[in-house]
C-alpha cells in the first residue's frame, strides 16, 4: 500500500486547467498515478452539428484559446475538401503567417509556464513580455489578439498590406534576439538544467508504442511533423527544418520548443516575402453533397485531426476532433512514475497539455461498462 495520496487538481496552482491527478507517494517518490478528465466538457462537436459550415469556422476557433487558428484552419480545410474549392495562393500564405505566429505565442506561453513550475517566475514574466510582440503582430493582421478568426471558406477575411508587412518584420526582428536570449538562458542556467535534465524520459520506443505527437515526439528523436509530411498551406514553398533531439527528457522538450520558435520566426519572415497584391478569397457556391473529409495540421502541440462528414445539407452531419493532447496524455504514467513529487509539475508541463480541448464525455451507469452508440446520444434531441 502507498504512503499517501496527493490530489492534484482539478483546481491547482501548478496547472490552471481542469485535470484531476491522484498521485500515490512513498516518501517523495511517485509510485502510481491515476488521472481523470471531464470537468470542462463543452459539447463542441455536438454544437457544430447544429450550425452551418460557415458559422462552424468561428465555433472551432473557440475550441482552444491558445491554438485557435490551428483548429479553425483544420476545420476550414476539411470543409474546402468537401466543396472541392481551390483557395488563392496568397490566402494560403496569410494563413501560414497567422498559423506560425500562433505557434510562437503558444511556445512562449509554454516556456513561461515551465519557468513557473520550477519556481523561476522571472522567466515567466520575461516570456510574457516578449509574447506581446507576437500578440501585437497578430492584432495588426487579424484585429484580435487571442482568437484570430482569419479563416473563411475559400480564403481569408483580411489582407496583409505592404505597410503591415514592414511593421510585422520590425516586431519579428526584435523578437528574434529575445528568443535567442531565452535559448541561451535555458541552455546555460544551472538550476533549470538541474530540474529538467533526466526528468520524464520518453524514448523512441515509447513514442512509437503510445503514438505520441508534436514536440514531445520530436524531442525523443522522431521527426514527425505534419508540416513536412502533408505540405499543407504554403509549407511546400517555405524552407524550414524539423527540430529533433534524441534525449527525450523535459530539458530536450524545452529545447526543441525554443528552437522551433526560431524556425517559426524564419518561416513567417519567408512567408511575408511571398505576399503580393492579389485576391484573398474565392467565393464558392455552398452546395454540399454526401461526402466526408479528413484534414490534419501541425498545431503547436502536435498533430490535430478533424473528420468532417456532410449529408447534403448546409450543416455537418458529424465532426470529430482529435486534439494533440488527447494523443499525448497516454504517456502520463511513463513520465511521472518513478520520479519525485517535485518533478510532477515539471514533467506535466513539459508535455504542454491543453486539457480543455481534450475533455470527453464519460457515461457511467451503475459502475458497469456500457457501449453507447452515437445515434443513442443524439436520439434524445
Amino acid at each position, binding site marked *: 500500500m502507498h504512503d*499517501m*495520496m*496527493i*490530489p492534484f487538481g482539478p483546481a*491547482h*496552482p*501548478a496547472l490552471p486547467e481542469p485535470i484531476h491527478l491522484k498521485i500515490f*507517494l512513498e516518501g*517523495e517518490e511517485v509510485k502510481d498515478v491515476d488521472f481523470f478528465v471531464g470537468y470542462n466538457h463543452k459539447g463542441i462537436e455536438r454544437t457544430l452539428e447544429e450550425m452551418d459550415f460557415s458559422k462552424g469556422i468561428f465555433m472551432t476557433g473557440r475550441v482552444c484559446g491558445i491554438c485557435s487558428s490551428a483548429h479553425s484552419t483544420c476545420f476550414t480545410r476539411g470543409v474546402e475538401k468537401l466543396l472541392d474549392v481551390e483557395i488563392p495562393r496568397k490566402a494560403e500564405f496569410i494563413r501560414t503567417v497567422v498559423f506560425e505566429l500562433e505557434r510562437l505565442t503558444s511556445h512562449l506561453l509554454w516556456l513561461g509556464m515551465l*519557468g*513557473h*513550475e*520550477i*519556481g*523561476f*517566475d*522571472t*522567466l515567466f*514574466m*520575461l516570456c510574457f*513580455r516578449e509574447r506581446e510582440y507576437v500578440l501585437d503582430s497578430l492584432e495588426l493582421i487579424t484585429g484580435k489578439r487571442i482568437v484570430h478568426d482569419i479563416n473563411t471558406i475559400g480564403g481569408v477575411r483580411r489582407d496583409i498590406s505592404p505597410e503591415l508587412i514592414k511593421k510585422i518584420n520590425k516586431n519579428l526582428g526584435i523578437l528574434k534576439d529575445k528568443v535567442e536570449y531565452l535559448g541561451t538562458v535555458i541552455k546555460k*542556467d544551472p*538550476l*533549470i538544467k*538541474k*530540474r529538467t535534465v533526466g526528468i520524464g524520459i520518453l524514448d523512441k520506443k515509447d513514442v512509437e508504442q503510445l503514438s505520441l505527437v508534436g514536440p514531445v515526439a520530436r524531442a525523443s528523436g522522431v521527426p514527425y511533423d505534419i508540416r513536412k509530411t502533408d505540405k499543407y498551406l504554403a509549407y511546400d514553398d517555405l524552407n524550414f527544418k524539423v527540430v529533433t533531439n534524441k534525449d527525450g527528457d523535459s530539458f530536450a522538450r524545452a529545447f526543441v520548443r525554443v528552437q522551433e520558435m526560431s524556425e517559426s520566426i524564419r518561416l513567417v519572415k519567408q512567408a511575408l516575402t511571398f505576399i503580393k497584391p492579389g485576391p484573398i478569397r474565392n467565393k464558392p457556391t455552398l452546395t454540399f453533397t454526401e461526402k466526408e473529409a479528413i484534414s490534419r495540421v501541425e498545431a503547436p502541440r502536435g498533430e490535430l485531426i478533424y473528420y468532417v462528414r456532410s449529408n447534403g445539407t448546409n450543416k455537418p452531419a458529424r465532426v470529430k476532433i482529435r486534439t494533440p493532447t488527447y494523443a499525448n496524455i497516454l504517456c502520463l504514467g511513463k513520465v511521472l512514475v518513478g520520479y*519525485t*513529487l*517535485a*518533478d*510532477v*509539475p515539471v514533467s506535466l508541463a513539459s508535455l504542454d497539455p491543453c486539457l480543455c480541448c481534450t475533455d470527453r464525455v464519460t457515461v457511467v451507469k451503475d459502475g458497469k461498462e456500457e457501449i453507447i452508440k452515437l445515434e443513442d446520444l443524439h436520439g434524445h434531441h
Partner: protein
Amino acid sequence: MVIIETVFISTFLSFIYEGIVRKVAARMQNRIGPPIWQPILDFIKLLSKERFEIIGSHHSFITFISIMSVASLISIVFMFPLVGLLNFNWNFILLIYLLVFSTACFILVGLSSPSPYTLVGSTREAILFLAYDLPLIIILLYFAMTYKSLQLLPANLILSFPLLFISFIIITQAKLGLQPFNIGEADQEITAGYLTESSGFELAMFNLAKSMRIFIMVSLATVLFFNPSSIPMFFIYSSIILFVVISLRVALARFRIDQGFKFLWIYLLPLILIDIVKVMLI
C-alpha cells in the same frame, strides 16, 4: 513604554521590508508590483477574515503556535544592540534558541492539520531545517568564540570573514523560504505547503512572522558583519543586504529537496569551515 514602542516599530519595519522585497522583485521582473505598504493592508484584511476550523486539526494549538512564532521573533528584536532591552551576558544562546523555535513553529503548524499538502510541506521544511540550521549555529557560535562573549555584540567581520558572509546570505535565503529554497511552500507542487490550511487570524500571524524573519535575518547580518555606528548607517547596510537577497530570489529557480539538501551540506558547510580553519591557522 519602550517595549511597546519596539514592538510597534519592529512590526512596522517588518511589513515595510516585506513590501520592499515585493516591490523591488516586481520591478526586476518588469512588473509594476504592489505598493510597499501592501503587507500592512493584507494583515488588516486577514484579521477581519473568517477562521475555518478544519476537521481533525488541532485548532487552539495552531492559534497558540501562530502567536508564539511572532513572539519569539519579537524577542530577538529586543536583543539587538541598538534596542538593548534583553541585554544580558548570554543572550547569544537565547538568540539561537529563538531562531530555531520560530522555524519549529512553521513545521508544527503543518503537522497539526490532516492535509497531505501541509504534511509534505512540513516534512520538507524539517529536512531543509536540518541542512541550514547547523551551519547557522556554527557561524553564530564562532562569533561568540572570537569575541569570547556570549552576548550579541556588533561586529565588523565582513573583511576578515568574507566567506562566512556569503554563507550567511545563503542561509538567510533558506531561512526566509525564498528562491532557491522555497521548497516547503512550493506552490506548484503542494499549494501553500505548511500554511495551506491556515486562515484568518492564524494566517495573518504567520505572515507577520514571515515578514519579521526578513527583518531579523537582514538586521542580524548587518549587526554581525558591518557594525553600524548609527541608525542611518544601519538602514544603508540593511538595504544593501536586502538588495542581494531580492536579487537571488529573482534570479534563481527552485531546488528539489534532495538537491537543496545536498547543496547546503556539500558546498555551504565546507565554505564555512574554510574560513574558520584559515583564521585558526593564521
